[in-house]
């Protein structure tokens, strides 16, 4: 029997002696593995990208709004806050208003919210801070409003003037100090109608005071988790409908209610479909590259073994058993496979990194999938090396020796 040390010695010698052949074999594996790993990694990055997109829009949120005035008050806000599964809620009022900064004026969507909105809508600040319930005449600007809308950029502590139309027809202009600027969440695929970048947020107390009203136009609610969004939304819907006197028989009929409720699930469904389609595409590309890579590996291994049939014949003539010969080829295939596999993973990950940075995708490394791709490709290399070696080892030595 061959000892492991001897086998390793012979195998390493064989790899080292034929550098071009070994390099080509390794290259075949490297390309195969790299293709698989790059695809798998890119797939994971795209998935993460979509998840981030949805997260950036606001996590687990439910939006309620009404065209009717004076149906939502603090009662409804308390009712929502006390519904199980609700992590936070902010009332909202909205008005398109003229905003003046220095010498420019623009029509901008003004939203009155409370301090919970920060968390509910997953707001990230570019500079400064978000509103608190103690604030009065301060405003938080979306990135686009602050940086692009006006002739000059608006920074924290700059004063802006907002002209409101009151319910009674009067016009009020009020000066606000900019408290913070909200980061642009950069969402491309997930459009919600509540994008913060084109809006200005002010405390809802201040807004209602200026407008001379005491009702809310709607609510922006955050559920405790994505799984709870559906049931929490339904529960809020039921409670609100009851408190607003919607008859029991109409509880399931959305048209009978004086408000509209929608949650993130609808957006999730859309982006989920997109993401699933992309994942399917990338998976099939990865599968194809695995097949192509495997064929490449198999090809080069077949050539390698065919080239050495004579050597196998000689070894048999010298008294090597079939098992000895297989051991040698398994060890050799494994060494080449491992080197190729490691180089392939490195190259694949590097390629994915490059594409990620080019497409501005997040860098995700799905260790499990990388491992599977690696093991599969190396396994294919092993099978591809052992299968022809097994065939050669079965031959009568004279037949193998006759091969050129």
């Amino acid at each position, binding site marked *: 029997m061959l000892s492991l040390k001897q086998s390793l010695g012979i195998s390493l*010698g064989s790899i080292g*002696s034929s550098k071009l052949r070994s390099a080509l074999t390794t290259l075949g594996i490297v390309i195969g593995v790299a293709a698989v790993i790059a695809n798998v990694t890119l797939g994971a990055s795209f998935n993460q990208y979509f998840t981030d997109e949805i997260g950036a829009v606001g996590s687990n949120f439910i939006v309620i709004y009404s065209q009717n005035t004076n149906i939502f008050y603090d009662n409804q806000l308390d009712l929502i806050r006390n519904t199980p599964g609700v992590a936070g809620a902010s009332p909202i009022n909205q008005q398109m208003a003229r905003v003046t900064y220095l010498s420019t004026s623009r029509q901008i969507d003004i939203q009155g919210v409370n301090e919970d909105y920060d968390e509910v809508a997953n707001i990230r600040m570019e500079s400064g801070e978000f509103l608190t319930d103690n604030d009065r005449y301060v405003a938080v600007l979306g990135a686009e409003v602050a940086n692009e809308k006006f002739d000059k950029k608006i920074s924290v502590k700059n004063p802006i003037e907002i002209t409101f139309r009151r319910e009674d027809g009067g016009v009020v202009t009020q000066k606000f100090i900019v408290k913070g600027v909200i980061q642009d969440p950069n969402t491309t695929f997930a459009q919600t109608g509540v994008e913060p970048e084109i809006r200005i947020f002010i405390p809802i107390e201040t807004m209602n005071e200026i407008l001379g009203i005491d009702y809310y136009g709607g609510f922006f609610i955050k559920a405790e988790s994505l799984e709870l969004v559906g049931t929490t939304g339904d529960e809020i819907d039921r409670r609100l409908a009851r408190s607003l006197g919607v008859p029991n028989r109409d509880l399931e009929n959305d048209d009978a209610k004086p408000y509209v409720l929608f949650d993130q699930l609808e957006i999730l469904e859309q982006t989920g479909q997109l993401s699933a389609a992309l994942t399917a595409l990338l998976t099939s590309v990865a599968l194809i590259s695995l097949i192509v890579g495997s064929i490449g590996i198999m090809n080069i291994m077949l050539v390698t073994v065919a080239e050495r049939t004579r050597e196998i014949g000689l070894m*048999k003539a*010298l*008294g090597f058993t079939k098992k*000895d010969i297989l051991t040698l080829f398994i060890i050799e295939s494994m060494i080449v496979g491992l080197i190729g596999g490691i180089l392939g993973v490195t190259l694949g990950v590097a390629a994915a990194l490059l594409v990620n940075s080019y497409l501005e995708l997040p860098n995700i490394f799905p260790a499990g999938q990388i491992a599977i791709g690696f093991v599969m490709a190396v396994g294919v290399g092993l099978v591809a090396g052992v299968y022809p070696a097994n065939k050669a080892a079965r031959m009568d030595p004279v037949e193998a*020796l006759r091969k050129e």
Partner: protein
Amino acid sequence: MVGKDLDRSVAEGNDIVIDICDLRKSYRLGDIEVPILHGIDLCVKKGEFVAIMGPSGSGKSTLMNMIGCLDRPTSGKVVLMGKDTLAISDNELAELRGFEIGFVFQSFNLIPRLSAYENVLLPTYSNSRKGHNSPQRAKDLLKLVGLDDRMDHRPTELSGGQRQRVAIARSLINEPSLILADEPTGNLDSKTSEEILGIFSELHRNGCTIVMITHDPEMEKYVDRVVHIKDGYIKNN
């Protein structure tokens, strides 16, 4: 003669190294069965130096391959050192090849990436006799064939004669009962051939059993017996 009629109990004694009985071999060429050997009987005793001679295509190499268990007979019996080579398992066959038979090929069949020393040592990776210090033995054998200063050279760095010397050293590494040489001088010039034959002759004097295929009529002066093969028959039985 000996092969067919000899009492088996005598044949299985230590004296008979090769005992071939009605050996036939044919190859299939498409639908046609091409016979190569038509019932060969041959017996080689311990310590004999036998030359097998015959024109090309006479079947001498085929016979040699049968003796060396490199090929399977179509029918008949090949008994080596008392073992019926058709009745034993593949592993036993490998062991037989490893321990009892030393091959010397016309084309040397050295592994090009291994040094002379490693080539000589190669058979011991799979089979090595208990109590043998194989590395030391490999060095001694290379010294014996006059290559003590070429041990670390690769086959490509050696002349044809030197390569064949390495192959001879390799064939001896496990102290085989039988050395099979298939035209060992076929690729060598006459002076080198003489040297190689000298080595075989020396081995024979030391008690080795050798069967050699050759074209060279000069050989007759070295060997105990010449077996002439023509068209698959032994002519001088």
